């Protein structure tokens, strides 16, 4: 019963906003805040109930091989919670940040559509339905990237639209290949029928999906659109894109498809490992030379996605725990860093690190939380980034891949170096800045403090008792590959 509501609520809110839109921006803000709060509560509730059993829901009351089904298992629930937390803080941050742009209500309508798309992608059990929700999220994202209305923003949005359309075409082709081979679009039915067919089909489909969703994930050879799109968008949208969109549309679908549908073929796991480690190193090398703060953060997204792919490629339960844990942690600290960059840009009118200085007096909350986020992303204890990276490195050594462990360690050290640069030039430089262009309001500060606290609190997920209760059901969905099929078909 709660499953369709998780998609209906944001969709309804989006069109209510356009319906009453026009000059009433306050109504749009209130509706958005109301919707994201409800979604946060519902996501937490749904994650708690999926700990016991997987929920399925038949759209239009059609049974499973014919209709579209929604599936809420622990992995989906986990993604939902992640999306809900980041969208809640983003909406909170937007209240005051978006005021300086015009026509707020358009922004909030697109924001809710973005949320609809992501919630749909993580809940659907039908591969074409997934494609449709993915397009909803992407088109909302194109609009939001261009929302500022400057030439460079249009250029970034156009680049994003071209790359997004190319990857969508590849994915659509993959779906067509699957449909012609298995006569079904339901993921659990595909998982059932695919092993009975010629195994070259798995290679075909896997290759197409790897390229298509690889582009959405922005793993290394497919990364070119990400730095432009993520640095040009308004700060709360950068955090939505970097924090959750590349995970919901990219990493989540890769997990669901390659582990639960294709049954984790060896070849593709090796591909995950190789792409992941290349992403870690090249991403961080590209990041370290950047002076534009948001661009630096965008390159780090590529590098951190590399860690997640590395963990997935190792495929031991410990490594997958590390990957899922790192995915959650990355959503928290990367969003927080984008909020920091956004509030610096709003307050000083620039995000070039060369023009910044000592901000700890005029922006105490921003510089304080940016310190926490920088320590988290660089992997310094006791913050969450340390534990997830540690788990991935230990898993790499345990599974007999010391080279990949070394790559992860080197990547982490370079991350530390580049964030020392951010702290040194951006927040604790010599030049003491006294004047601000705009004030950083309470709602922006509140959003940053929420995430900073969560950066510390989520470290607790590593503690044995808590880990078994919260993370193990999620990891089990990924490691017990065919379990998904039985659970979905079982009712």
């Amino acid at each position, binding site marked *: 019963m709660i499953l369709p509501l998780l998609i209906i609520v944001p969709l309804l809110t989006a069109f209510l906003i*356009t319906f009453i839109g026009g000059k009433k921006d306050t109504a749009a803000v209130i509706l958005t805040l109301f919707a994201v709060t409800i979604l946060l509560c519902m996501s937490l509730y749904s994650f708690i109930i999926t700990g016991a059993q997987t929920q399925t829901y038949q759209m*239009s009351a059609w049974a499973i091989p014919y209709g579209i089904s929604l599936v809420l298992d622990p992995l989906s629930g986990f993604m939902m919670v992640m999306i809900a937390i980041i969208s809640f803080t983003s909406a909170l941050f937007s209240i005051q940040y978006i005021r300086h742009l015009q026509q707020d209500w358009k922004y909030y309508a697109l924001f809710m559509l973005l949320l609809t798309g992501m919630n749909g992608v993580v809940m659907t059990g039908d591969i074409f339905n997934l494609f449709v929700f993915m397009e909803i999220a992407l088109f909302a994202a194109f609009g939001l990237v261009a929302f500022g209305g400057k030439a460079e923003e249009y250029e970034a949005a156009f680049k994003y639209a071209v790359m997004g359309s190319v990857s969508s075409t590849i994915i659509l082709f993959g779906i067509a290949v699957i449909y012609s081979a298995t006569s079904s679009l339901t993921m659990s039915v595909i998982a059932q029928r695919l092993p009975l067919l010629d195994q070259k089909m798995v290679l075909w489909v896997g290759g197409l999906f790897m390229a298509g969703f690889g582009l959405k994930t922005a793993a290394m050879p497919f990364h070119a659109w990400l730095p432009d799109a993520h640095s040009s968008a308004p700060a709360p949208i950068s955090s939505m894109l970097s924090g959750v969109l590349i995970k919901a549309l990219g990493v989540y679908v890769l997990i669901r498809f390659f582990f639960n549908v294709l049954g984790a073929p060896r070849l593709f796991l090796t591909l995950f490992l190789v792409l992941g480690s290349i992403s870690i190193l090249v991403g961080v090398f590209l990041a370290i030379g950047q002076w534009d703060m948001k661009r630096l953060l965008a390159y780090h997204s590529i590098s951190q996605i590399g860690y997640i792919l590395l963990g997935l490629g190792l495929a031991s339960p410990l490594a997958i725990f590390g990957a899922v844990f790192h995915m959650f942690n990355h959503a928290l600290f990367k969003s927080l860093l984008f909020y920091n960059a956004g509030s610096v840009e709003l307050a000083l009118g620039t995000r070039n690190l060369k023009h910044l200085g000592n901000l700890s007096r005029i922006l105490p909350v921003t510089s304080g939380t940016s310190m926490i986020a920088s320590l988290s992303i660089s992997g310094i204890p006791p913050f969450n980034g340390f534990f997830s990276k540690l788990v991935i490195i230990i898993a790499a050594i345990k599974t007999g891949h010391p080279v990949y462990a070394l790559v992860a360690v080197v990547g982490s050290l370079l991350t530390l170096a580049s964030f020392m640069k951010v702290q040194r030039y951006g927040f604790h430089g010599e030049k003491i800045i006294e004047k601000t262009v705009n004030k950083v309001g309470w709602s922006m500060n509140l959003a940053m403090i929420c995430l900073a606290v969560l950066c510390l609190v989520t470290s607790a997920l590593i503690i044995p008792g808590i880990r078994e209760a919260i993370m193990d059901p999620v990891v089990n969905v990924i490691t017990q590959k065919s379990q998904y099929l039985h659970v979905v078909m079982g009712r």
Partner: protein
Amino acid sequence: MKSHDGMTLIVKTVTRLSVWLIILYGLYIILHGHLTPGGGFGGGVVIALAFLNVLLAFGHKFTGEWLKIPLLEKLESGSTLLFMLVGLLGIFYAGSFLANYIIKGSLYHLFSAGTIPLLNIIIGVKVAMSLFLVVWVMAAFKIEEEEEQ
């Protein structure tokens, strides 16, 4: 300014006659969506094309007066809300979102197939308004640019 006042008298006269036929054909496709090929999307596109025909033949200014653009915008977002409402009623009457809860009737009759014709009409309105407004906004954008020059 002359370019904004549309095309020649011949085109205007033909458009004046044909536009209602095109709209009628669009309505036919929408209403028979559950019986014959086509449906809300196809019919909606035909209706949008009828409006675009007027926009091309008579120009931006006349079309803006002939059609009430704010009303079209309300219809565009309102139709989506109606679609959601029909879907949500499915939860209350038949236990599932978008479930077909109206009596189905007999095959090949105009009033049959439960909620499907209703949803086709809603989709038809949505598609017609969306497609027309997209072109309308893009056309307005071009005029503003010309004025700047």
